[in-house]
């Protein structure tokens, strides 16, 4: 549906570098990245508001790289929405139709139809001044959607909204997208937002595309440290491969494929860990905080494979889960559910065992 081929753009010292992406029809695609990573610029390149230095942009197979914004037929909702303050809600929504010289008989019905779709019919006669954040957002969406574009480009569509409205709007966006079979590219820096809408996602950092895939993939199998940290995993440590280890029956999940059953021994600080798969040299490892298993350190019980002694340094309840900061051979963070934490019956300074199961340790390839 939309394909970019190594597009580059620079403004001042910032560079968008060789971004190649493909977004298929009917997909809800979320482009993630910290502020200043070039997400909005990428979107503006897609709409033709910024002329790319090099590379190609294809929409439905047609090269649109040199087309004017108005000829690209993309629905664009900028950050802050930019509703025209001198027009009413109705005039704002009808703007695109008027500009494109739709027949005067046609316009009111199209406007009300779109307003109904977004539940903002009661706002039509209002001025822009005085609309709430959520209403402004819906009007901006209606203004873009009234032209029935096949692709919607949303730049931080909900970041200015309060938590409750944000969730509402996100689920509405998701429903609309399914209902109308739209292709959506949604730019955001917020993970929760991405999880509530995305079919696929990509992460951009300093103008460079880091990784593309499902959110599950980005979460579990990040390729780089940046992606891992962006997906809120701080458990990253360096190790050195010491050699292949024999597959041990007890450790390997039965569903693992034969090549995964190969184990590698890795030295991290003073301890040795087993990993699945074959690796060489220095490796960068990560384990998600929720995958770190914690058990009390019973006297007399020996330490097993991939088990390390840790001390509970700090804990904090985040309403739903407890974040435990653990001191050990290397610092670890573990997330436990409230219930699991209560079960443990431990306080700060307690000796604990952290279990890093080989199938949960992921090797960062970049």
């Amino acid at each position: 549906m939309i394909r970019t081929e190594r597009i580059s753009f620079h403004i001042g010292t910032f560079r968008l570098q060789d971004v190649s992406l493909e977004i298929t029809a009917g997909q809800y695609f979320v482009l993630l990245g910290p502020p200043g990573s070039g997400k909005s610029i990428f979107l503006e390149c897609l709409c033709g508001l910024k002329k790319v230095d090099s590379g190609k942009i294809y929409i439905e197979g047609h090269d649109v790289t040199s087309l004017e914004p108005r000829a690209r037929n993309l629905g664009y909702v900028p950050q802050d929405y930019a509703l025209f303050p001198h027009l009413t809600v109705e005039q704002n929504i009808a703007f695109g139709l008027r500009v494109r010289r739709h027949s005067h008989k046609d316009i009111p019905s199209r406007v009300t139809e779109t307003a109904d779709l977004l539940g903002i019919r009661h706002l039509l006669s209002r001025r822009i001044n005085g609309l709430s954040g959520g209403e402004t957002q819906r009007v901006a969406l209606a203004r873009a959607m009234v032209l029935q574009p096949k692709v919607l480009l949303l730049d931080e569509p909900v970041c200015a909204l309060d938590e409750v409205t944000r969730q509402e709007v996100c689920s509405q966006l998701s429903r609309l997208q399914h209902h109308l079979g739209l292709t959506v590219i949604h730019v955001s820096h917020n993970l929760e937002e991405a999880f509530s809408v995305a079919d696929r996602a990509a992460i951009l950092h300093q103008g460079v595309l880091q990784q593309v895939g499902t959110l599950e993939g980005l979460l579990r199998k990040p390729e780089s440290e940046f992606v891992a940290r962006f997906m809120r995993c701080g458990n990253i440590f360096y190790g050195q491969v010491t050699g292949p280890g024999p597959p041990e029956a007890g450790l390997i999940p039965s569903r693992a494929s034969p090549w995964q059953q190969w184990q590698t021994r890795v030295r991290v600080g003073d301890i040795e860990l087993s990993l699945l798969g074959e690796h060489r040299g220095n490796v960068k490892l990560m384990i998600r905080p929720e995958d770190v298993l914690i058990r009390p350190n019973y006297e007399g019980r020996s330490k097993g494979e991939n088990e390390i002694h840790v001390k509970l340094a700090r804990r904090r309840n985040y309403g739903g889960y407890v974040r435990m900061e653990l001191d050990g051979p290397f610092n670890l963070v573990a997330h436990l559910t409230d219930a699991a934490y209560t079960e443990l019956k431990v306080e700060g300074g307690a000796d604990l065992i952290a279990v890093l199961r080989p199938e949960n340790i992921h090797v960062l390839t970049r």
Partner: protein
Amino acid sequence: MDSPVKGWRDSIFEATAFFFVCIFVIFVLILIFADVFYIDKRAIVTVLTSRFIGHALWMSIWTSFATTFISLFFAVPMGYALSRLRFPGRIFADTIVDLPIVFPPLVVGLTLLVFFSQTAVGRWIQEDLGIEFVFQPKGIVLCQFVAAASFAIRSAKTAFDDVSRRYENVALTLGCTRWGSFWRISLPLARNGIIAGGILTWARAFGLFGPLMIFVGSFRGRTEVLSTTIFLEQSVGNLEVALVIALLLIFIALVAITIIRLVAGQGDRPKAGLIRPASGGVKL
């Protein structure tokens, strides 16, 4: 009241600021009243019945409005270009626009006179093309334009600067051409600033004196405007008449500015929800 809780120091501070407002306003009012008390009935009758002064009044009004419209005609595209386009020499052009503001007005008259009487191009325009400016009513408009257009251009540029580009960008994606986004979005949003610039231009043109004396002179019934009439009357000792005309000038200026504000202030733009409103450069 929409203000924070005040202590006595804050009250003193605010009172001091307000004190300056009072001093200035009172001073100007005293000046005007001094004029009012000096004039007499005979002078008023003279002014109201004089055919020449009536003509000068008419000249003042039409030339200043003509200048304002011509200035705005230049100011709108120029303001947009200076605000939006990036071209080599933009900063130079921007400076040139401001130049007539710092020129002593007299210099404008001198410069124009030298150009039209002493240069080949000027003489060609006057003699071969037959468009005469020197000592002609047309010259009044030209003088006023050179002396006052900068205000309109400067205000228009500021007004366009204050219109966020996001509005134009969205309009482009909705199907507008650059011209369409200018006409439907930028111009309406910059309206107040442009009108404010128009008022400044008109005020400057209406009261202009120095360059007119040099470039077009002050011929009774031909190139005389109110400001030059005041000079002529006081130079022959008719101080009362000169003051009546001055008061007339002030009165017309007040009425005109009030009317423009009332008309332009209507349908005032609402503020945008989350974005800083794109306000016109000068507040009306």
